Structures are given as C-alpha cells and as structure tokens.
C-alpha cells in the first residue's frame, strides 16, 4: 500500500508534465529518440558508482561499528568513554563538511606525516560515508548485544570461553537477529547520502544529473528521473530488508 502511494506521486508529476507540454520537456530523456536515449543512458550509468560506493561504505561501517560498539559494552568506564566520544563526535558532524575535510584536508594530514596517500573522489566518498554511518551502526550493535541476557555471557565464561570466543560463539549469533534488520535500514541512509559524493566530482547518479542539466537546461525532467532512480534503489533495498526480517522472525519461532 505504502509502496504504491510512494510511486504514485512521481507518476502524477509525469502525467501532469506530459499533458501540458509548455512547461515540461520530456524529449530530453525520451528513450524513443536517439538523443533522449543517449541522455538516459548517461544518467543511469551513474548507478554502478552509486551502488559501489554505498556497498563498500556499508561493509566498512559494519566492521568499524562493531569495533566501536565493543568498548561501549565494557565494565570499565574508560572504555565506555572511548565509545561515547566517538559516537557523539561523529554523529554531530554534518556529512558535507566531513566530506570536504576528508577529500581536501586528509591528504594534507597524510603529507605532513610524510605519507603520500592521495584520496580520489571514490575513496573520499567511501571513507566519509563509512565513518559517518559507523556511529549509528555502533549504537545498533550495542543495543543488540545488550539485549542478550547477562546469564549468557556468564555461562560462556564458566565453560572457559574468553571474551572473543564468548562474543563470537554465544553473544553475536543471538544478537544478529536484532542487529541485522536495523543495519540493513542503515544501508538506505548510505545510499541516499552517497549523493553528496557528486560535489567532489564522483561520477555517480547525482553528478550525472547535474552535468546533464548544465548542457540541456532541463532541470525539472532530469531531476525527476534522478529521484526515480533513488526511489527504485531504495525500494529494492527495503524489499530486501523486509525479506530479511521475515526470515529472522521465522528463525526465531522455529
């Protein structure tokens, strides 16, 4: 129901636009004409980069998030403080300034330390998205792990398992059911935020749209298509999340 409604709005715009050709110029992305088809191909070809950036950033965020969450679960106040500082600090930085800092600033930091590590738009975007998102994944892990009863880790300790074995074999396999669905939802956030990579010159969906708007001067039509492209991506991911949730739920019952 929700999904149909979400699709209806842009469709309405489309129909409205087609019927009054004064304000809309769909020819610019009309796949039946050769120039329109070239334009559509140009726009959609940014999809690969958007997906790549988002996927790699998501994987990194999943790893960093766990590494940040673990000290947050410690009984030692010092370790918990490390977790809090990271989460609060990273959460409060807007994505765009962080992107500029990583892309323009970080190479200079590296240089001053005598390392020559260039950062291209691709990795600049990935690093920024991963770090920005990791503050959220860390909190998801923490909540998930805390939801597992204390008796479980005590029982694991009394049969001689160390900290990492306890996490690996007892706690995480149980917590994963609570962690995975919200983690997958975070992926949607990453996909949407990856649009910012356009400003440092990454050739992804949004950048392509911007470039075409400059040459064709048809912002309404091109950005409408752009929104559609994100919509399709996000709908596919949410379908995946729902499938995952159903499977996790089924596991829990059986």
């Amino acid at each position, binding site marked *: 129901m929700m999904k149909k409604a979400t699709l209806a709005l842009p469709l309405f715009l489309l129909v409205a636009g087609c019927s009054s050709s004064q304000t809309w110029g769909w020819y610019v992305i009309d796949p039946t004409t050769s120039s329109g088809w070239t334009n559509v191909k140009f726009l959609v070809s940014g999809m690969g980069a958007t997906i790549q950036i988002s996927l790699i950033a998501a994987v990194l965020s999943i790893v960093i998030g766990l590494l940040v969450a673990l000290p947050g679960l410690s009984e030692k106040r010092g370790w918990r403080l490390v977790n809090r500082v990271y989460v609060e600090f990273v959460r409060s930085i807007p994505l765009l300034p962080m992107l500029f800092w990583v892309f323009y600033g970080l190479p200079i930091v590296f240089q001053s330390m005598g390392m020559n590590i260039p950062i291209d738009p691709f990795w600049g975007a990935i690093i920024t998205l991963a770090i920005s998102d990791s503050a959220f994944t860390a909190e998801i892990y923490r909540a998930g792990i805390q939801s597992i009863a204390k008796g479980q880790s005590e*029982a694991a*300790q009394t049969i*001689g398992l*160390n900290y990492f074995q306890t996490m690996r*074999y007892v706690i995480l396999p149980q917590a994963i059911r609570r962690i995975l669905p919200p983690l997958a939802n975070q992926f949607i956030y990453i996909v949407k935020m990856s649009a910012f990579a356009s400003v440092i010159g990454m050739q992804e969906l949004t950048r392509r749209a911007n470039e075409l708007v400059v040459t064709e001067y048809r912002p309404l039509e091109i950005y409408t298509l752009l929104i559609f492209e994100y919509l399709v991506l996000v709908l596919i991911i949410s379908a995946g999340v729902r499938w995952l949730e159903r499977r996790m739920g089924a596991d829990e019952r059986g």
Partner: protein
Amino acid sequence: MPDAAIELVDVNKWYGTFHVLKDINLTVQSGEKVVICGPSGSGKSTVVRCINQLEKHQNGTIRVDGVELSDNPKSAATIRSEVGMVFQQFNLFPHLTVLENLTLGPIKARGLSRKEAEDKARHYLERVHIPDQADKRPVQLSGGQQQRVAIARSLCMEPRVLLFDEPTSALDPEMISEVLDVMVELAQEGMTMVVVTHEMGFARKVADNMVFMDAGEIVEQGKPEHFFTNPRSERCQKFLSQILQH
C-alpha cells in the same frame, strides 16, 4: 588432611556502600558437599559467584585448588576451567543444539577435537539420563531436562568443583526430583559440590557441611545432624522452622 578444594578466608565484598559479604570463612575439602541456605538477599549467590570470579571480592583471600584468586586474568581463566557452575535459570545457549551446548567449551577452551568432545558430551548426557535429546534445541526440552543439560555442560569441562545456585528454584514441582536425583548421583560419585538450595531433603541426604547465611554473614555451619536438630543461633532456628514446615 586432604587438600582443600576451596578456601575462603575473611572475605569481604561491597556493592558501593552496601556490605554484601562480611568476613566469610569457608573451607570445602576435596570430595566434600556443602549446602548453603539462608533467606533471600543474604548473599548466598554472591559467595558462589565470587568463587568462580563472576564477581570480585574486595578483601580477604579465596583459593581454589591452592591457587589464590587475584586480578590476574590468567588466574581467572584457570579457576573457571576448574570450577563448573549451574545457574538457577539454566542459561543454555538457545541458538545451539544440546550437543553443541556441551561441546562448545571442550572444543574452544580445551582444544579437544570435535569427535572427542562429542563422545564426551554423549557420555555425560547419558549420565544425566537424556541420551536421546542431543540434537534438539534447548527450547524443545522441559525445564528439568534443560537443567540436566546444563549440569552435563558443566561436567563436560571435567571441573574439580561444581557450584549450584538454586538449581531447582525455577522448575515446576514435578521436575525438581529428576534434577535432584542427578545431583545425588554426582555426590555419591565423589564430586566436590557447593550447592545453594532450599531443598532440605536433598541437603539431609548429601551434605557433609551445612552453612546458614543471613545478612551477608555465615551465622552457623556444621554437620547436618547437629544443624537440623539443634541449631545454636536463633536466626537459624527460625529460618529452619519456616522452611521445614513446607
């Protein structure tokens, strides 16, 4: 005189400003069965949890098998592998089968091969009278069966001492005896046991030493003959008369 399996000397513990254990002195000889009873909140669980280092005591000495417990994580690891623990709430691992629950410790902590660990697991499942439940998940078992799996899981680590913290308190009445029967068998086979319980029938049958705790202190301890027939302290008399009425 045989080796003491466990020795607590003047052990004190605080939760914040709350003095939960006061000068606890307790010796458990190898092969001995000690039953601890006392009113709720008296510190019984805390004593047992200090022995296997789930809680830290602030002063006094605890020795397990002659090794003193300290902040050294290495000593904690040695102690834990020698001291088994059975919890009131079983604390089985719900995502693993019964067999996997039993083999996890031996494989990961002891380095046994899967085959060795499974043979051992089946052996102990037989000892607790549920040889045919190996491939089930804990949720598919009754409470009594779950607790017996938990006992088998501890036995698979072949501990020198087995601690029980109210092992039958979470069970339906009709399942209590099946768990107690297993514990009596273990006792008869010579296992060193420290049992927190209010099952006085069991205590009479197996205890070598009875311990009564109240408000963080060991108020009375002694042989069951004396303990049940003429306890010296008034608090213990009162507690026993209450509990034996049921």
